[in-house]
């Protein structure tokens, strides 16, 4: 767990990012249909179209385009959005904090609920509690995330109106924020009423995102805990005279977490990927939502930009998971 290790993992991520860039680039160049021609008004002349194409660099050969593109990306220039006429990087960075806040809240919710469910099922093993947890898990995993989002809308916005179902904040409110990290800012400056409202907007999308991860964590951790609870050192802890609660949380849980992290790691990444659909369903203004507009408009630079940012997020998340594992695993700690 040295800086060298971290660096090595970061370097390994670069080929993956490169692969993603290639795939997106190639896919989008295989467009049947001309994005330029689509966005231009009907009375434009072929000259106009040609000039526009040149401006967007779409007149050059594909390999040349790719090299130019890479060069630009490395310098931080992601191009200009065809449909929104603005710098792509700026657009994406503007919406990214919203998605990050949503993802973080969803992940926090998943971990807390998942761990609590697994602990309860183990503590009350063999009783109805364990069966209930198993049942809830199965149902949560059987029904696709998309439908859960719909059911949540039905349940909590229409039938029992508790949470709003769109947007990040009530549009009527006249509040200005210094950054795009609304929730963080509200919490940091002590505006708790505002934070509460932001959280209520985040509630339904975050719950929809977290349901599959909660079920996975609960299931994997529960099985991991069961394996740990029959170990000799748990027996010794019992003989030492510790209470059942302490044995579960202090002796068993740290050992059960390790294998859980390995197995569930990939599901955290699925969660971040899930923001794309959830943001659309709940009209939440993040980068996932932006992707749809870009796709409808065949806005290649914007699609590329958002995809690359998502890929970067996945890589970083992967790294974070590996690092967490290394920190938690006593065999990998240095003395």
């Amino acid at each position, binding site marked *: 767990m040295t800086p060298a290790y971290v660096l090595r993992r970061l370097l390994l991520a670069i080929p993956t990012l490169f692969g993603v860039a290639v795939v997106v680039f190639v*896919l989008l160049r295989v467009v049947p249909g001309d994005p330029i021609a689509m966005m231009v008004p009907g009375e434009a002349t072929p000259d106009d179209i040609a000039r526009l194409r040149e401006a967007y660099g779409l007149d050059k050969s594909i390999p040349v385009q790719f090299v130019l593109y890479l060069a630009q990306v490395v310098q931080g220039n992601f191009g200009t959005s065809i449909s929104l006429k603005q710098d792509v990087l700026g657009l994406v960075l503007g919406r990214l904090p919203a998605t990050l806040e949503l993802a973080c809240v969803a992940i926090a919710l998943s971990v807390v609920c998942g761990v609590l469910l697994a602990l309860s099922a183990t503590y009350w093993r063999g009783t109805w509690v364990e069966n209930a947890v198993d049942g809830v898990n199965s149902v949560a995993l059987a029904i696709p995330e*998309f439908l859960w989002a719909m059911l949540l*809308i039905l349940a909590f916005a229409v039938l029992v109106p508790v949470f709003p179902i769109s947007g990040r904040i009530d549009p009527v409110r006249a509040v200005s924020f210094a950054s795009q990290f609304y929730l963080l800012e509200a919490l940091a400056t002590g505006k708790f009423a505002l934070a509460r409202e932001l959280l209520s907007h985040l509630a339904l999308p975050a719950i929809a995102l977290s349901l599959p991860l909660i079920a996975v964590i609960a299931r994997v951790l529960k099985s991991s805990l069961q394996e740990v609870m029959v170990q000799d050192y748990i027996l010794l802890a019992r003989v030492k005279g510790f209470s059942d609660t302490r044995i579960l949380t202090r002796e068993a849980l740290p050992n059960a977490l390790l294998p859980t992290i390995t197995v569930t790691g990939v599901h955290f990444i699925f969660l971040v990927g899930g923001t794309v659909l959830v943001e659309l369903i709940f009209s939440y203004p993040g980068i996932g939502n932006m992707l749809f507009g870009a796709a409808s408009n065949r806005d290649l630079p914007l699609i590329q930009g958002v995809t690359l940012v998502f890929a970067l997020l996945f890589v970083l998340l992967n790294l974070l998971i590996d690092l967490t594992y290394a920190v938690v695993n006593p065999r990998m700690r240095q003395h």
Partner: protein
Amino acid sequence: MKKLLRNPRFLFGACVLLALLFVAAFAPWLAPHDPMEQSLLNQLLPPSWAKGGDPAFLLGTDTLGRDLLSRLIHGARPALRVMVLGATLSAFVGILLGMLAGYFGGWLDAAVSRTVDTFMSFPPMLLAIVLAAVMGPGLNTVVIAVVLIGWTRFCRVVRGEVLALREQEFVTSARTIGVSHLRILFHEILPNLLPLVIVLLGLEMGRAIVVEAIMSFIGFSSSDLATWGGIIADARSYINQAWWAMTYPIVAIIIAVLGLNALGDGLRQVTDPVLQR
């Protein structure tokens, strides 16, 4: 075979599948109305058993006065088309590449595995959206999306199986006799893959239905057909006036998915020698 018929999950799944096929095949005769027929007089009618409902429109109508029951029934058609086409094509591509990669190994295996890894590092929705941007909306786009998302699952599993099968005696002895690689692949190895493939197919069909629903919800599927996802999307816009409209397609999709998953599970239970003990 008999064991299959006694397995409750398989039975449930098979019933659901048959029901879906039936409804999709006979939709025009089963539906009481034309799913596209608009009627401004009968907008937003509640289900026939509720107050204000009209028995002619059993499940009620949407904002354009279209019968929800008919739309629901006709929605089975695109769902089924995508499910069958998408899952089979997905299986085809995945199995082909998986067999080649597992059997020949070397650079072919490396290339296929890298490709699988790259595809799997995309969130499925992202692939679908990018594809829709490229191909434009339509049912074919949805089918291709299902294939792009699902082939890696078949490929990975098949590759693993082939790697194991390759070392077995019936293969090595065929080689010594001088049987060509191609014959071995299709006559020796492929039949052994079938039970596994059938299980995966069942599960993949369940996933395909969800992809179709999502794509039609977003609007990247065909816009002149009635689709379950499309009904949900419409219903979402007038959810405060007629919340019940959304429940029908949701229930339909849930039953379809649960049924197909049960089908896959049932098949797996019967074919997996480990579970049979």
